[in-house]
């Protein structure tokens, strides 16, 4: 019963949110407040993992920034700061946590695309 109460207090799940899976190439559009103005920033990369857990549900995105430096960012799935998430392509992966991508660069870091 107490779990029902907790769930009712948490933010409702966003129906527009696509299902995010490890290996997906996604763009995360994030609202950022700078002083008084608000703007949207895109963060584009590969999803390394996703976690359930009510309001703590989150997913990690890894992108390669300039000079080949990997940048990882974790987003809360139900956060009101997330404007939208676009899935560009899905990959065939065999594990839930793609930490092996951290050690790979260039052609080695490719994932096989999944069409369906």
């Amino acid at each position: 019963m107490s779990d029902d109460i907790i769930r009712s207090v948490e933010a409702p799940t966003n129906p527009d949110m696509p299902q995010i899976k490890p290996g997906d190439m996604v763009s995360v559009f994030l609202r950022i407040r700078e002083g008084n103005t608000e703007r949207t920033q895109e963060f584009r990369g590969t999803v390394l993992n996703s976690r359930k857990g009510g309001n703590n549900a989150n997913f990690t995105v890894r992108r390669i920034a300039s000079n080949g430096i990997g940048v990882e960012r974790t987003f809360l799935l139900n956060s009101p700061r997330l404007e939208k998430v676009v899935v560009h392509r899905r990959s065939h992966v065999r594990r839930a946590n793609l930490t092996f991508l951290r050690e790979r660069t260039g052609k080695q870091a490719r994932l096989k695309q999944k069409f369906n």
Partner: protein
Amino acid sequence: MMKGLIGKKVGMTQIFDENGAAVPITLIEAGPCYVTQIRNPEKDGYNAVQLGFEEIKRERLTGGQLGHLKNNELGPLRFLREFRVKDPQVSEGDKLEVGDVFEIGEQVDVVGTSKGKGFQGAVKRHGFRGGPKTHGQSDRQRATGSIGATTTPGRVFKGKKMPGHMGFERVTIHNLRVEYVDGDRNLLGVRGSIPGPKGGVVMIKAARKQ
């Protein structure tokens, strides 16, 4: 209106504030409470308000408990707690609901009974470092160590930290911010954690050290 309620811990979660930041909160099913008695200096020697929480079956209480509640024509209540309040601004028999008592942004103190840990050693109970793992040691890894000097003083000091029962004691957490109030469902959310297990009874009071 006096600031005070009795409640039951529901559990923890996190919510998003107006800036979109995640805030860790503990939900408490707080009230409705009834004022069962007002203590005054003339009769009782101190100022306090006694609140009752959670209605139960009549058979669960003794005749004396029922008689105490009957003074104000209240039904049987499971828990009674006293809150030291100088100027109560409530009268006996009043009903207190969370929506009327607390509002978002206020600071509160939460009093509860911590989870019982049983008989625990000095490493867990007092944070002792234990002994060395190596250099020929045996049976010393989580040992208490020396508990005193020699012939002077020839005894162990009172209050020496030693193994013993841990937990299940009254704990007060000060200055928790009220982050969530739902008057219809008697729900209160405070920032951070509070003592005790889910379902544990807690007292919520106005913050003393503001």
